[in-house]
C-alpha cells in the first residue's frame, strides 16, 4: 500500500449519474486485487476534507492502468468529476482484503445492485484467467443505470440485467433467477455488493445450496487504514457479534458473517 499521486488518463461520464476514471499506477509494485479499494482525496476543498473509498473497477496488470466507476453522489464525487486528464490524483491503496475463490473451476455468481457492480466487475474481469466463468445478476433502478453490463460481457461474464423500471427486480424474481442459474451453471460461489435485501437473499440461497459466499461491505471511513475505528460495523464472529473494521478487516467478508437486518 502506498500514498500515490497518479496521473489521470481519462475521466468521463458513462451516463448522467455515473462516471469512469482511469489512472496510471505504474508507481505501484504490488498487485491490485478484486474487492480492494483506494482511498481518494477528491479535492483540496475543506468541504471534502476526508478521503472517499472507491473500489477497483478494472485493473490491467500489463499496462498498470486502474479504473474506477463512480456514482455522482455528493460534494466529493462532484469534485472528482471536475478532474481533468493529466492532473494528479492523490490516493492511498490498494487497501482492504480482496475477494477469494473456493478451489476448483466451477462458475461463480455475482449479484450486484446499483454501484455495487463497480466492486464486482473487477472479480468478473479476473476469473477467466483462473479458468472459470462469472455469471452476473445486475440490478438497477432504471435501464439507464445498467452501466457495467457491456464491460461485464466484454470480460466474458454472462449477464442477467434486471430493473425496477421493467418490474424484473423484485426479490421474488431475482431469487427464482438465481436458483435457476445456480442449477444450470453448477455455481460453487456467490459474491454480492450494493444492497442489503439482495445480500439477504443470497445469504439464504448460499445456505440452502451450500455455496461459498462473500459480501463487499460499505461504511463511512476516516483513515481507511485500520487505525481509527470509524468504519467498524457489526459482523457475526465465533464469539458473537463484534464491531469489525470494514477498511482493514474487510471490505470483503464471508456472507454468512454479515448482519443484514
Amino acid at each position, binding site marked *: 500500500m502506498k*500514498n500515490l499521486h497518479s496521473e489521470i488518463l481519462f475521466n468521463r461520464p458513462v451516463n448522467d449519474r455515473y462516471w469512469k476514471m482511469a489512472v496510471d499506477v505504474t508507481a505501484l509494485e504490488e498487485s491490485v486485487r478484486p474487492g480492494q479499494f483506494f482511498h481518494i482525496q477528491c479535492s483540496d476543498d475543506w468541504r471534502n476534507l476526508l478521503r472517499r473509498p472507491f473500489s477497483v473497477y478494472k485493473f490491467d496488470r500489463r499496462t498498470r492502468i486502474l479504473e474506477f466507476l463512480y456514482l455522482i453522489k455528493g460534494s466529493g464525487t462532484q469534485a472528482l468529476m471536475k478532474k481533468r486528464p493529466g492532473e494528479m490524483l492523490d490516493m492511498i491503496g490498494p487497501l482492504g482484503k480482496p475477494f477469494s475463490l473456493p478451489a476448483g473451476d466451477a462458475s461463480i455468481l455475482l449479484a450486484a445492485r446499483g454501484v455495487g457492480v463497480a466492486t464486482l466487475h473487477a472479480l468478473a474481469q479476473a476469473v477467466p484467467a483462473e479458468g472459470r466463468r462469472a455469471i452476473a445478476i445486475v440490478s438497477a433502478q432504471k435501464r439507464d443505470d445498467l452501466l457495467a453490463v457491456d464491460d461485464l460481457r466484454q470480460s466474458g461474464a454472462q449477464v442477467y440485467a434486471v430493473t425496477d423500471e421493467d418490474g424484473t427486480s423484485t426479490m421474488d424474481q431475482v431469487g427464482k433467477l438465481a436458483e435457476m442459474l445456480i442449477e444450470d451453471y453448477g455455481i460453487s460461489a456467490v459474491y454480492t455488493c450494493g444492497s442489503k435485501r439482495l445480500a439477504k437473499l443470497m445469504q439464504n440461497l448460499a445456505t440452502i445450496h451450500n455455496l461459498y459466499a462473500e459480501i463487499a461491505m460499505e461504511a463511512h471511513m476516516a483513515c481507511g*487504514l485500520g487505525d481509527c475505528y470509524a468504519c467498524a460495523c457489526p459482523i457475526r464472529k465465533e464469539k458473537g457479534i463484534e*464491531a469489525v473494521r470494514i477498511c482493514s478487516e474487510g471490505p470483503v467478508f464471508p456472507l454468512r458473517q454479515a448482519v443484514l437486518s
Partner: protein
Amino acid sequence: MTWRPDLSVKISKLMLKNPIMPASGTFGTEMSPFIDFNRLGAIVPKSITLNERSGNKGPRICEVEGGMINSIGIQSKGIDYYTEHIIPDFAKYDVPLIASISGDTIDEFAILAERLTGIDRVAGLELNISCPNLRNNGIAFGMDEKTTNELIRTVRQVTDKPLIAKLSPNVTHIQDTALAAEKGGADALTVANTFLAMAIDTETRKPKIGNLMGGFSGPAVKPLIIRLIFQVHQVTSLPIIGSGGAMTGQDVIEMILAGASAVQVGTANFMKPAAMLDIIDEIADYMMRHHIDKIADLIGKIDLE
C-alpha cells in the same frame, strides 16, 4: 554544517525532540508504512479502557464543513491486550509513549494508571476525562471542576508518571477546570478534546451520527482552540498541549504563540498520513525564516503590545 533550529520541548519530565505528536484515536501502527514514527515528538495511541468495549453504532463519523464529527465510543480491547500488544508494538520506536486512558468511573482511571505505572516504556499518562461520547448527552468528567479535581487527585495517588489532563472544551469557563486539574496534581494539560456537535441529513431528516451527537474536530475548530489555549495559559504555568485543528506548521506556531508547548495532530492524519512530518518540516522552515533558535522560546510569545 548547516544550522538547524532546536525543536525540542519539555512537557513535565518528558523531553520531546519536537512539539508534534498524534492526537489519541487518530493514529496507530497501520500508519507506519507512511511515516517514520521515530521522527515524532511523542506517540499517543488510542485511548484505552479497563475492559473490552465494542464502541458505538454507526455511522460513527460524518464530514462537515471544515471538519468532522466522530462518535467512535472508544472501541477498545481492554488493558491486557494493550499491555501485551499495543505497547510492545510502539516500544521499538525511540519516542516517548504517552498512554491515553479513559474510564466510566474514577476507579477505572485509577486502576488503569496503576497498571501502566509498572511499565517502563510508558513515559506519561494522558487522562481522557473529556471524551464527549461516554456518557448520556455528552456529559464527561471534564465538564465539572469538582469531578475533574477528584479524578486527578485519585489518579495522582497511584502513579508518579507525568499526568496530562485532556480538558473538555465544552465548558463555560475552561480556566476553572484547568485549575481544578492543576490542584489535583496534573503535570500538564491537553487543550482540548473535541466540541460536542450534531448534524442532520436534510433529505432523510435523520441524524448523521448513529449516536446522535459526537465530537467536532478539524481545521474549523482551530480559532476556538487558540482562544482556549490562550485562556488556560493565562491562569496556569503548567505546560499545555494544543489539540484541535492543527493542519500545518503555521497552525502549530499559532498554538505555541498562544501558550502551547506541544501540539497534537488528529484529523490531518486522515487527509494525509504523513501530515505530521510535513508539519515538523514547516515548523523548522518558519524558525529559519524568523531566525528562531529554540522553539521553546516561542511559547506564549503572542505580541499583545
